[in-house]
């Protein structure tokens, strides 16, 4: 009985100390604000999701076309729309990325991944990551299928 009570009290004390730890370690916190994303960060995340969705869809369409699940005609129709979506997302991201880079403090900069090419390279028509659609039928001989999009520097296509 006594041992049980001692062990119970020890457990309670340990739990209280652990729960109070954030206050014990930092009793007079200069900043006690919860790290919530700003409106700009939320917007950026939304655009990143839109960009990733469009680029992933481009890969998917490319893969489905190669594996015979999408006809050439459907492929041409889909790839153009998806390229536009990806380009729009990349273009919309440009100002938020610039502003984000400006706002970053120098010491924290090395920790943040730098996944995007310099803003000048984001111009959709010349962006190397977005596959060029086939030219309209009859205009030229169909070229070799475009390279699978490479949305992230250093990563390989998923096919």
């Amino acid at each position: 009985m006594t041992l049980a009570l001692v062990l119970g009290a020890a457990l309670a004390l340990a739990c209280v100390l652990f729960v109070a730890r954030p206050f014990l370690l930092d009793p007079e916190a200069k900043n006690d604000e919860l790290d919530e994303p700003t409106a700009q960060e939320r917007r950026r995340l939304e655009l990143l999701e839109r960009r990733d969705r469009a680029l992933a869809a481009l890969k998917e369409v490319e893969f489905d076309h190669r594996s015979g699940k999408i006809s050439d005609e459907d492929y041409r129709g889909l790839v153009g729309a998806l390229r536009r979506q990806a380009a729009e997302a990349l273009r919309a991201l440009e100002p938020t990325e610039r502003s984000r880079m400006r706002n970053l403090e120098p010491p924290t900069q090395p920790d943040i991944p730098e996944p995007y090419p310099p803003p000048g390279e984001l111009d959709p028509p010349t962006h190397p990551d977005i596959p060029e659609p086939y030219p309209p039928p009859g205009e030229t001989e169909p070229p070799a299928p475009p390279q699978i999009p490479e949305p992230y520097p250093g990563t390989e296509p998923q096919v």
Partner: protein
Amino acid sequence: MAELGRAALVICLGLSVYAAAAGAYAAYRGRRRLSLSARNALIASFVAAVVAVLVLVAAFLRNDFGFTYVAEHSSRRLPALYTFSALWGGQEGSLLFWLLILTGFAAAAVLLNRRSAPDLVAWVVPVLGGVAIFFSFMLVAVSSPFDTQPAPVDGAGLNPSLQNLHMLIHPVLLYLGYVGLTIPFAFGMGSLLAKRGDERWIVATRRWTLAAWGFLGIGQLIGAHWAYVEVGWGGYYAWDPVENAAFMPWLVSTAFLHSVMVQEKKGMLRIWNMLLVAGGFVLALFGTFLTRSGILSSIHSFTESPLGGWFLGFIAIVIAFSLALIFLRLPLLRTKTKLDSLASREASFLYNNLLLVAFSLTILWGVLYPILSEAVTGQRNHVSGPYYNFFLHVFGLPLLLLMGIGPLLAWRKTSLRTLARTWAWPAAVSLVVGAILLALGAGSSIPGLIAYTFSAFVIVSIVVEFVRGTRARKAVAGESWPTAFSSLVARNRRRYGGYVIHAAIVLLAIGIAGSSAYDTTREAKLRPGQSMEIRGYTLTYRRLVQRESENAREVRALVDVRRGTSSEGTLSAGKNNYPVERQVSNEVAIRSNLVTGEDVYLIAQQVETDGTVFFKAEVLPLVNLIWLAGFIFIGGTLIALWPDARESRRLADRYGYAAARA
């Protein structure tokens, strides 16, 4: 030491209340340290639950019958191995086990996501704390495993049907599945509370959902095997309410795992996914309520049970909370994206969702109907196998076909000409298989014939998918066939892991169709030396033997099995008499042919004192494919779960801001 167990549960309750209240206040007012403190409280509640469980395990190992729970679920003759089954064999112990897994999962989930989604975790903590309050409160105030009594000389023992290796694994897996569904629910609701319209919660819980779903699936399969080898009625699934209780959340989670891909790929079905994630959790709670409230035996025992009302109240609160939150956040969840075509991958996912949810709701109605009829008319009307089998055919067969059609469709749209080309092989092979089976006499069961034909379609479509994918990969990377195949799977584990799981479901369907639509049953009363015939087998009853085991008196009838002129060995079917528990169990004998997948299944239904035995024999074709499907299911789930470095890099890029500041 019961005091320590009680103290640990009270501490766990206190910590859960703090995690919920302080966590909600901190998240609402944006208080960093208070939020961290609430998170620590949730983690500490796991430590308190571990202490409570250790106290109970120690009491079982010491045969401390001063603990009422130990005295009611163990005995001195109970083998030590089954002490662990006894831990969750009763109501109080199983609730404690629920709490242990819940707090353990909660601690792991918040720790794993604390850097990548701190603002989301701030809202997840109070939701998880709220669920932990309910279970710890039940254990402290309503149904404590630490009640004490003057110790009797020996305990009442454990239900003999639980004295089986399956029962060491089956309940654990089911609990891991049930409780695992709490995590996606908490992150989904946390995301709504945090007013986040992004998909961070899906990314955070993708593996939790898949793992919980996998545990539920394998747990049910092991439960079916337990029923097959231990309960001894000649089958593996009886549409029992307890079995249905685990099947319903599994079906809804299956729907969620598919529809969440549509949200990830196209940003659609956000409201639907929230409803599914809440539905899966509510059904998991409902399953626990069904098994623990006493309502299954009678609505009257439900009112006598201390748990029933509390569980029903908590389920009502969870439903009201989830629906209100989803309704409040509708503007955040609405999307403008629409379905491009009815012949697309996402459309096939939508069809499969409708079928899965409809199937789940019909099962729910079958479970509730006897209870409601008793409540209204005072008379219990049972819903039996034919009701469920009808809906299994109505919803299950189209679902089986969709498993073959879906992978052949492209995202967004597929033209009719392409469809004709991609379906050519699967359709041709399945029609040939169907025709051959019809010629061989499989038409005796139309649902069975359709199931086999559809299964052929799915298998061929999976093979075609792998071949086309490997060929495309080979063309892109210039790799050899084996390298191209392995890179194909490694680069898209969810997709190809999913196809392996589809293959497992097909094997399951073939096994179920074979063993339920084409089985043969014979019954005979035999004296030693007499024989019975069944589907080409001759079963000859030789003699009766008796022996004493550690905790039971065993009687076995030895039966020689012959097929034509060749001997197939001896079966030993009989009964075990457990003197402490005062119960008798059927011990069936099974002769498996691992080449054909067929089983000869023998039950000694009645053993007379003069040595006469009343036998029931069954031949179940292809039944072993059901168990084989389990291994393939595990393999597919592991492939889909396996971490992907490329995916991690991509997500670190997307959510990097949070990681960088944490």
